[in-house]
């Protein structure tokens, strides 16, 4: 390599050379709340000011729940948490239970991919969002558009997550961090597809179902007027001594 070219590359902090392990990206990060995941991520958490791609094909494998601790932390700031094109309606009590301040959630419902990209870029550029979560899903977004979003994320000071369909895993992407999510039996399997500044290929299994198995659900019965009690249906039997009855008025 020519000395002049080497000088240029060495002077830039955003170019990583395998030979030069000491030249690492220094980005702000937010704790993922999962130690095994933090250990595998270069920044020790979800990197801020970059685009992070999460690739998954199905809903219901815990792909949002494992992100909630980070969102909960970011929602404590006086900024929006933008949900752009969420596939379903987020359920407030679930987010509140995870510590997310639901008054910070701003939901944007674009009609098409053009509006989706525009809304994502605007949210990133506004500087008033602590997190921008975009569900690109199966929209086939051109690389130039992804690069534009990555550029907008770079100038922002927020966490930017893009949910994309798994079929785009083979396609190149300008995102600095790419993770493939696969729900397995009681776990959410994560594979690092790309991570700027270090090697990729790490595999992590996050226990998702444990929470459900550990916590027994309570049976809730509402107080009904005497006239209606005649029609009350019998409660299913429970052997769990921990269960308690809550009466609402």
């Amino acid at each position, binding site marked *: 390599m020519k000395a002049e070219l080497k000088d240029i590359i060495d002077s830039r902090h955003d170019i990583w050379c395998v030979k030069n392990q000491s030249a690492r990206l220094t980005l702000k990060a937010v704790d993922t709340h999962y130690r095994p995941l933090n250990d595998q991520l270069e920044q020790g958490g979800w990197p801020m000011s970059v685009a992070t791609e999460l690739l998954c094909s199905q809903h*219901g494998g815990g792909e949002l729940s494992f992100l909630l601790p980070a969102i909960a932390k970011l929602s404590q700031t006086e900024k929006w948490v933008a949900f752009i094109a969420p596939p*379903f309606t987020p359920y407030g009590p679930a987010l*509140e239970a995870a510590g997310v301040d639901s008054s910070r959630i701003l*939901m944007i419902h674009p009609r098409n991919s053009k509006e989706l990209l525009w809304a994502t870029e605007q949210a990133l550029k506004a500087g008033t969002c602590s997190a921008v979560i975009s569900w690109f899903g199966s929209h086939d977004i051109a690389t130039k558009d992804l690069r534009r979003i990555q550029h907008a994320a770079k100038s922002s000071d927020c966490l930017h997550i893009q949910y994309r369909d798994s079929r785009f895993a083979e396609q190149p992407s300008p995102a600095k961090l790419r993770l493939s999510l696969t*729900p397995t039996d009681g776990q959410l399997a994560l594979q690092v597809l790309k991570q700027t500044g270090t090697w990729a290929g790490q595999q992590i299994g996050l226990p998702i179902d444990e929470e459900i198995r550990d916590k027994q659900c309570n049976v809730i019965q509402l107080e009904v007027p005497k006239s209606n009690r005649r*029609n009350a249906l019998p409660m299913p039997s429970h052997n769990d001594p921990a269960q308690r009855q809550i009466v609402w008025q």
Partner: protein
Amino acid sequence: MLWLCIYLPLLPVEAYPHSTKAPLAVSENHRIKFCNALASSQDIRTGQSLVTAWALYSELEIKDRDHQRESLRLQQLADFCRDFTPHVSIPSGDRLLLDLTGCLNVHGGWPKLKEKIQTSHLLTTHHLQLGLGNTPEAAILLSHNLNFESETVIRNNSIDISKIQHLINEQTIANLNCDSKTIQRLANLGLKTVGQVKQLPSHALGHRQSHFFMDYLSRLYGLKGDVRKPHITPPQFHEESYSLQSVSNLSEIQPAFELQLEKLQRFLRQHQQHCIELRWQLRNEQRYLHRLHVGVEACKNNVASMLKLTQLQSEKQPIKRAINQVALESIHRPLSLEIADDLFPESLSRPLDQQLVETLEARLGRDRISYLKAPTSHRPDDLGAVDQDDLNHAKRPTWLFKSPKLILQRGKQMIFEGQVLSLLQGPERIDTQWWSSRCQRDYYIAKSDRGLRYWVYKDLVNRRWFVQGIFA
């Protein structure tokens, strides 16, 4: 005290926008009453009959005097003069009175303020005579004087009262702001200047003149207070701009948007208002009308932000035909309402930025932006805030379907979207709305054979199973 009187001797002519471009005269009782400089250069003089005027210059345009037009123009100028001082009053049909007390330092001294007034875009089209005084009446009197040099009476941004009184004394009695009979009576006494009137013993003068005149003299010399009612315009904004050519391209309409918004910003500043919504009307002569309503509450009267939102909205709702008229109405409220009355407001946290929301609404539409609603009842379907403390003990799904989806039952198997569901946890009984249509459900957490988790329930009324949400 420092008062400025702006005298507009040619207001009846200058009230017509084209007065600077063509010879124009205004008539009253079939006589020329006022004429502009271009008409004067054609030997048109005040008092000439209309026939004489036309004989001298056949292309002379003569308008009947329109007092309403003059009044509207004067009010417009009074509104504009709020840029210089918050206290502007209209003492007569051709004068404005500005209370400049405490304003000179803000404008960098009298010479700079005078330059601002004379070069301002609205006043530059008018012939102005300025008069400065320590009292309103002194300023009005000195505005008659064509040779008045305002710089001579201002020293270190304060008025030289002895100099002013000297100038007042030099004025002829014809310039006094009182009726012609009073002036005639003074003239009959052989008095020529105001100073000569002032030298007369007040009791002797009081016998001969009315108490109104004595009161006027006291106010003129500052011996008596003179409170002026400020001119207040109802804060309504409606401006229109026209184009000779019809345009359909947004970039061609943008200058009209900018022009209107700049006028609006000045209006909002003058009236201490905060704009909430812009109501645009884009029209053409074929009665085509295109309305644009733009929410701009978060823009804080900033022209660039309001323009951006207008552009976004007009991209979303493009015009279908070429237009040549752009009208703007503003919905606004006083800025004073923005300040909380409470000494200790309930929420000390700053409100979240609304500018992003308004930008998104302008482009995508209001229906495309939503917030997380707290549930209005214990039934999960009713998204909308009850205290959720009790529910927090139970696991809740992150996604909720807009309406529950039916689960197919094949024998003992539950099938949902091609997946076989098995129950992991439950049940959790939710029994509510007994006062209307009773909702009795047993909720379970189910898992599919693909490892996905759902929130399912059995409706105890119709014994059918539904999926309500997803544990994403």
